[in-house]
C-alpha cells in the first residue's frame, strides 16, 4: 500500500519549518529520525500524570509508572517478534552493543579471578571476534576494546567493489567466539545476508550479534527468524525520543551473562562484601531507567505498526530506486555502495568529482536539503573505497519523490557553483 506522505508529514511539526530561509527537506533520518506529535504527547502525558521511579515504590504513581514502563517493553518486544524478558532498555544502541562486549571482558576477568562464569563468554589469546569492514564504529570499537583487554584477535569480512560483503573473505573459524554484523550498512545501504552469517557463526560454535540500527526502523524484522542470539538498535532512529536504545538477547544467554552496569534495581541480595543479581532484563537495567522515553518509544512503535512496516519498506524501496536512477544520470556523481536497489536499504552515499563531500553537503543545506557529510562513523568503509568521506541521503517514511528531486537539483547546483559540472551538462537540467 502506498503511503500517504502528505498526511504523514502533517504529523511531524518540525517538517513545517524553514532553514536558511527555505523550506526544510530532511534527508538525514539515518542519523536520527524526526518525531510525530503523538510521540511527544505520550512523553509529556507520562510526566504530567504518572511520573515516578519504577520498580521501587509501592505507591499509586509508582505502580502506574512501572505498569507504563513494562507495557512499553511488551509493545517494543512484540514489534520485533520477541518476548518482553528478552528486551533490555539501554540509552542508545551503542550501549547495547557495549553491554554484550563487556559480558566478554567481564567474564574473562572474573574467570581469571577464579569466579565461576559461563565459558561461552571467556576469551583467551588465540580466540577471535569477527566483524565486517562495513561496521558503524559502534559495532567495531567495542570489539577492538575487548580484544585489547583480553588478548583476543579481531577479524573481519571485507567488502566487494559494489559494496557487498565479500563472503570469500570469511574469517570465521573454530576459535571464533562471537560474530557481530550490521544488518543494513548505514553508509553503503547494503542489506547483509545475516541469516547465512548467523548460521556460519553457530556452525563454528560462536555466538551471533546483529546491529539492527538501520533495519528495525525501516523494514519488518523478526529477531528470532534472523537466527541471531543478540541484536541492538536505537529508539531515536525509529520516531522515538533520544536517550533510549534496545538490546534483544535470547533469555538463556542474557541470564548467563555477568552484569554490565551495576547498582540499584539489578540486584537480588546485597551485602557490603557480596551481592547477587536479578535475572535479565532487570540485571542489565541498573538505576532509574529512561521511563518516559520507553513510554514514548512504545507510542512510536504503535505509529509505525499502524502504517505497517511492509508499507514503510516498500515506500523506501521505491524512493531508493528512483534516487539511485536519478543520481546515476548525473555526470561526475558516483554512488558508494550497491548501485541498484536489490538487497539494499535507503541510505545512499555518493561523491562528486572535483568537490569534497563536505562542500556538496553545505551547498545542499543552503537550499534547505539536510544531508549528512563525513565518514558516517564508518571510517574504515571510506578507506576501503578510497574516499575521505561521502555525502549521504537517507529518506524515511515522511519523504517523497519531490524530496529526492530537491536533493538531485541541489547536487547539480553545487556542481555548478564549484564549476565542476562537465561542459556538456551545463544546460537543460
Amino acid at each position: 500500500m502506498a503511503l500517504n506522505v502528505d498526511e504523514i508529514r502533517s504529523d511531524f511539526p518540525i517538517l513545517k519549518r524553514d532553514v536558511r530561509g527555505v523550506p526544510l527537506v530532511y534527508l538525514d533520518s539515518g542519523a536520527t529520525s524526526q518525531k510525530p506529535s503523538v510521540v511527544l504527547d505520550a512523553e509529556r502525558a507520562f510526566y504530567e500524570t504518572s511520573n515516578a521511579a519504577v520498580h521501587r515504590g509501592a505507591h499509586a504513581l509508582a505502580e502506574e509508572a512501572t505498569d507504563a514502563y513494562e507495557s512499553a517493553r511488551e509493545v517494543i518486544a512484540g514489534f520485533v517478534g520477541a518476548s518482553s524478558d528478552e528486551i533490555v532498555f539501554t540509552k542508545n544502541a551503542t550501549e547495547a552493543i557495549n553491554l554484550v562486549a563487556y559480558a566478554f571482558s567481564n567474564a574473562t576477568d572474573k574467570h581469571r579471578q577464579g569466579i565461576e562464569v559461563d565459558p561461552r563468554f571467556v576469551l583467551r589469546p588465540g580466540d577471535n571476534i569477527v566483524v565486517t569492514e562495513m561496521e558503524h564504529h559502534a559495532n567495531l570499537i567495542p570489539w577492538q576494546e575487548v580484544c585489547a583487554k583480553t588478548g583476543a584477535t579481531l577479524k573481519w569480512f571485507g567488502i566487494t567493489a559494489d559494496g557487498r560483503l565479500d563472503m570469500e573473505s570469511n574469517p570465521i573459524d573454530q576459535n571464533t567466539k562471537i560474530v557481530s554484523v550490521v544488518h543494513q550498512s548505514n553508509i553503503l545501504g547494503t542489506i547483509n545476508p545475516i541469516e547465512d552469517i548467523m548460521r556460519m557463526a553457530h556452525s563454528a560454535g560462536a555466538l551471533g550479534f546483529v546491529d539492527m540500527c538501520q533495519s528495525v526502523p525501516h523494514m519488518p524484522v523478526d529477531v528470532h527468524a534472523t537466527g541471531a542470539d543478540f541484536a541492538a538498535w536505537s529508539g531515536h532512529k525509529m520516531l522515538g525520543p533520544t536517550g533510549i536504545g534496545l538490546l534483544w538477547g535470547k533469555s538463556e544467554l542474557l541470564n548467563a551473562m555477568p552484569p554490565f552496569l551495576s547498582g540499584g534495581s539489578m540486584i537480588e541480595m546485597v551485602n557490603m562484601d557480596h551481592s547477587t543479581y536479578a535475572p535479565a532484563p532487570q540485571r542489565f537495567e541498573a538505576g532509574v531507567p529512561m521511563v518516559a522515553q520507553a513510554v514514548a518509544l512504545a507510542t512510536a512503535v504503535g505509529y509505525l505498526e499502524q502504517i505497517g512496516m511492509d508499507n514503510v519498506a516498500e515506500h523506501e524501496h521505491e524512493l531508493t530506486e528512483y534516487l539511485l536512477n536519478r543520481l546515476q544520470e548525473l555526470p561526475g556523481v558516483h554512488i558508494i555502495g550497491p548501485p541498484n536497489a536489490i538487497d539494499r536499504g535507503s541510505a545512499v552515499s555518493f561523491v562528486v568529482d572535483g568537490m569534497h563531500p563536505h562542500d556538496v553537503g553545505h551547498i545542499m543545506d543552503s537550499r534547505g536539503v539536510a544531508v549528512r557529510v563525513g565518514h558516517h562513523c564508518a571510517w574504515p568503509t571510506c578507506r576501503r573505497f578510497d574516499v575521505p568521506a561521502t555525502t549521504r541521503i537517507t529518506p524515511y517514511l515522511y519523504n517523497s519523490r519531490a524530496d529526492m528531486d530537491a536533493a538531485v537539483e541541489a547536487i547539480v547546483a553545487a556542481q555548478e557553483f564549484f564549476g565542476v559540472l562537465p561542459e556538456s551538462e551545463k544546460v537543460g537540467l
Partner: protein
Amino acid sequence: MSDDLYQEIILDHYKNPRGVHSLDHALAESHQVNPTCGDEVTVWVGEGDNGSLDVAYVGQGCSISQASASVMSELVAGKDAATVSKLEDAFMELMQSKGNLQPDEDVLEDAIAFAGVSKYPARIKCALISWMALKDARIKAGLTDHASDIDEEN
C-alpha cells in the same frame, strides 16, 4: 481504607501466624527474597502420611507476605502433591486477576482474602513469595505430580 487489601483474615494471620517452625524431616527447603522490599521466607517440605505434604516456614516481612505464608501453610498441609499443585495454580491465577476474579472459597479457603492484593501490582509479589518457595521446595524434594507439574519444569 485499604479494606480491599487488608481483610480481617489477613490481619489475623499476620498477628497469629500458623505453621511457623522448621521441619525435622524436611526433604527440601527453599529460601525466597523479594529484592524490592527485603521480605524473606524459607519454606520446608517433607512427606507426611499417605503421600500428603508436611509444610513449615519461617519468614519476615510485611503483613501480606507473612499472612500469605501462614494461610498457605494451613491450606496445603496434609494435601497430596496433585492437590497442592492445583492450589498453587489457583492462587497464582487469583494474583494475576487484577481484581477481576471471584475466587472459589471451597478451593482456596482463607486464601480468598488475598483477592484484593491483585489490584496492587507492588504487593502481588508479597503474597506470592511463600507460594513460590513452596513450589520450589516441592520440586526440589521430588514431591511433584506428573500431570500438573511437568510442563512448568521444562
